């Protein structure tokens, strides 16, 4: 099987799996097995793309070319492959977790849930492997639409309101800004292909470059730059598996991934470094990462706190991209991987707590650590990774980002990163600390009996927590993959 066919399969397998499982809506067990098999198959397909990419190839396939110079095409390059690996790998765990969660909670419409989930993953694969900006835009919109039914899954007034905000902001920014910037780019450069070193270099002056880049950054509403971050907390009305995979991994990472792609392959980091086109975006992102952390401190609802934490952490990636130097890009890419692993752990924990105790507010969770020791231990590990303390994966990302901002002599950003890390400690550590060190509300229940969530919920979160630790030790091989990303056009 050629690598180009594999690319196409990466899109089609989840789609086919999704369709197949709708036929099995009457037998939940068969349905969930199909989900699991599809997820594993997809992961294997993504993995089998590695040999080619590691040897420096970029497998690609053109699906259609409706307008001259503008095609729908797929292409595997290191950055996209990394994103695809994260999304497809974590999909397996989320499917397991989702089975436990949905059954544990007796949710309705489970078939629609898993179907939309599969479509979303297919869209995420499309984003990861998009060969040009137009293809990426198509899948970006597909992801928005496919996740909308997931956000409104509960179907009550709250969910509908959240869904409206979600769809409204994402559609408005993507069509209003992203599509506009895309069209403008095509008009300037005559192509939208992702090329090493960028395509805009000869076509824009500093002013236009800055306007374009700003449009792109705000247009990618999924990256949750303030003031377009409101959808992310609003989307927390979704069931927790959705929040975990989509709003900690697939959707939000699709956003920052898009910005990274545009930075590296449309503008080229040299263009941004030379013209200072990223200035506005960089400061907005810096502002976002500090302010979101402060807002997170004020939230008592666990998922809301995690949501604002995500808003802040995404801005790390954007700052890294806008620094426009090698260390910044490495830091940003690592942050995508590390934060995904860490944040999905935290969301899994939040869901497990909800399934086991139906508690959502942090202030109610005192002493729960003894009832759910695994969950809260995992939460603690995930928190440390997000904060960026060794020996956990997150520390590498923060380290490279700091190096990048020092290299770019942006001392204010260095300070902001440090302050934000302190704030991260302030809003994440108390959750686990309360659970372990404070006495429970009602002492008569006794803290000694262990009453964890269903096994299907607890196992995945232990795996991701362990993953956060492992990533620290495999930081170097991750670094090697990232260093394959062509930052500049190859000199002839």
């Amino acid at each position, binding site marked *: 099987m050629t690598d180009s066919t594999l690319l196409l399969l990466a899109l089609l397998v989840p789609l086919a799996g999704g369709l197949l499982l709708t036929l099995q809506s009457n037998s939940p067990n068969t349905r969930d097995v199909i989900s699991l098999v599809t997820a594993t198959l997809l992961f294997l397909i993504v993995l089998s793309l590695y040999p080619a990419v590691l040897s420096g190839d970029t497998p690609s396939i053109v699906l*259609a070319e*409706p*307008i001259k110079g503008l095609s729908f095409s797929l292409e595997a390059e290191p950055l996209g492959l990394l994103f695809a690996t994260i999304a497809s790998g974590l999909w397996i765990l989320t499917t397991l977790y989702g089975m436990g969660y949905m059954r544990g909670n007796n949710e309705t419409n489970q078939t629609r849930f898993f179907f939309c989930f599969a479509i979303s993953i297919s869209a995420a694969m499309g984003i990861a492997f998009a060969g040009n900006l137009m293809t990426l835009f198509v899948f970006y*919109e597909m992801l928005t639409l496919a996740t909308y039914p997931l956000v409104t899954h509960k179907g009550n007034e709250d969910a*509908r309101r959240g869904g409206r905000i979600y769809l409204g902001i994402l559609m*408005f920014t993507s*069509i209003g800004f992203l599509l*506009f910037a895309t*069209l*403008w780019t095509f008009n300037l450069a005559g192509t939208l292909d992702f090329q090493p070193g960028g395509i805009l270099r000869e076509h824009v002056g500093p002013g236009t470059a800055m306007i374009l880049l700003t449009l792109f950054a705000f247009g990618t509403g999924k990256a949750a730059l303030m003031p377009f971050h409101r959808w992310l907390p609003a989307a927390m009305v979704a069931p927790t598996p959705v929040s975990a995979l989509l709003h900690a991994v697939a959707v939000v990472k699709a956003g920052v991934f898009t910005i990274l792609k545009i930075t590296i392959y449309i503008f080229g980091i040299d263009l941004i470094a030379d013209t200072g086109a990223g200035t506005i975006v960089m400061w907005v992102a810096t502002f976002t990462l500090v302010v979101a952390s402060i807002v997170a401190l004020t939230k008592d609802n666990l998922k809301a706190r995690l949501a604002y934490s995500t808003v802040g952490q995404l801005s790390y990636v954007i700052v890294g991209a806008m620094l426009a130097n090698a260390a910044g890009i490495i830091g940003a890419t690592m942050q995508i991987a590390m934060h995904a692993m860490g944040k999905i752990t935290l969301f899994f924990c939040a869901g497990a707590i909800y399934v086991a105790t139906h508690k959502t507010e942090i202030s109610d969770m005192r002493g729960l650590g003894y009832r759910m020791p695994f969950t809260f231990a995992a939460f603690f590990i995930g928190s440390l990774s997000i904060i960026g303390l060794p020996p956990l994966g997150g520390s590498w990302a923060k380290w490279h980002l700091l190096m990048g901002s020092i290299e770019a002599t942006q001392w204010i950003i260095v300070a902001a990163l440090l302050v934000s890390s302190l704030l991260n400690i302030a809003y994440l550590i108390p959750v686990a600390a309360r659970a372990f060190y404070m006495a429970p509300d009602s002492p008569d229940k006794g803290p000694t009996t262990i009453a964890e969530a269903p096994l299907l919920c607890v196992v995945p979160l232990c795996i991701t927590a362990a993953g956060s630790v492992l990533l620290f030790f495999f930081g170097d091989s991750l670094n090697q993959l990232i260093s394959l990303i062509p930052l500049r056009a190859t000199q002839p």
Partner: protein
Amino acid sequence: MIEQLPAIQLLLTLLAAPICSMLRNGDHAWRLATAATWLSTVVAIMLLIQVWDGGVISYQMGGWPPPWGIEVRIDELNALVLLLVTLFGSLVITALRESLRGVMRHQRQSLYYTTFLLCFAALIGITITADAFNVFVFLEVSSLSTYALIARGRDRRALTASFRYLIMGTIGATFILIAIGFLYMVTGTLNMQDLSERLPAHWDNRVIQASLAFFTVGIALKVAVFPLHYWLPNAYTYAPKATTAFLAATATKVSLYVMIRFLFDVYGIEFAFEKMQLSTILVPLSIAGILIASLVAIFQNDAKRLLAWSSVAQLSYMVLGLALLNASGITAAISHMFNHAMMKAGLFLALAAMIYRVNSSKLHDLAGIGRTMPLTTGAFAVMGVGLIGVPMTAGFVSKWYLISGTLDKGWLPLAALLIVSSLMAVVYIGKIIDVAYFKPAPPQHADVREAPLSMLIPCWIFALLTIYFGLDTRITAGLAGRVAQSYLGVS
């Protein structure tokens, strides 16, 4: 045989119409009408293949050579329009039988199909004739049949809508007649080719300038260019179910073709747009049309009326594309003419299938229809997405060219406005989709079944074509691009 194709194209449905009126059995009439329209679709495809490489077919009616005799002339532009009229018309008439059954007596049905065929034949006539006066006659034949078709709507407001359209349409047609009269007065010819050769000598003649003014106003009424769109929303809303699909696909599009033919060929770009500065009127009007009509569409609570207002906005896109006067703009206008005809016909047809079951096009009656009629709603959603202009659908291609056209001119704010209008399209199409999928069905519609196959299949053909023409654009944008090149290359 091959040489006679243009005549066959015209006569096939024109002769089928009176035969149809003599059939007492509505089903037989339907069979005859369907056979005739599909045959003429085949002829249209054969003609398109013949002119594919830029060839021109010139057929002399009765053997009289032009400019004395009446000439039928088919080039790439009207071959595309011909395909539009015949293919989409045939698809609609195929679905028409089920939609009429039960609401109309057999004898009446025959007459209905007769009117339909007359309209169909007249539209073909407008498209292929090379004689200016013939355009007027066929325009009136098609309009008269259209008024009659609209007046058959079940609501009594169909009558007033039809009457209003009749008054406006007749004024428009008479204006066009005056314009043609002026042209003849000065040049002494009615053949379009001949006219375009003789006119440059008379550019400073006030009669010719007045002729352009009369023509523009007259055809703008027929195309429903904002603010002369007054007749359209009611006419589309109250026309009988599937008939709206036919009208939306063909009538305004053929009028738009006449506009292109006269402004670009007969009067010529240099006269109409450079000397008379038509763009300075058409651009602001079409922008206003796009924004205002889209805005009005958002606030409708009747799906049919919503789509009708969307048509006004979409027609303004096409006029804007023409008025931009660059390759991308004209390509956009011509390809959007085809694409929009396809998508709107499909949307109205899918809506007709829904109305067939729930007997209403009010949004609250369509609640939950995504679950009771999943296939119809699925087709509707695909074409709705196409109308918005999502990539990989036909609507994207033409909108892409339109925005490229504005960017080529350096009009960034206008490009931004077009994107805003796309957002509005997201809102109004989203409104229907949201109701269809995410609202519970009212109890009285709990046992609504899927539409009959004879309606469902045409709907899905439209939906699949919407996707096909989003991926393979040789017939639409490719052909339109060549036409645009030939217009701009000459001037």
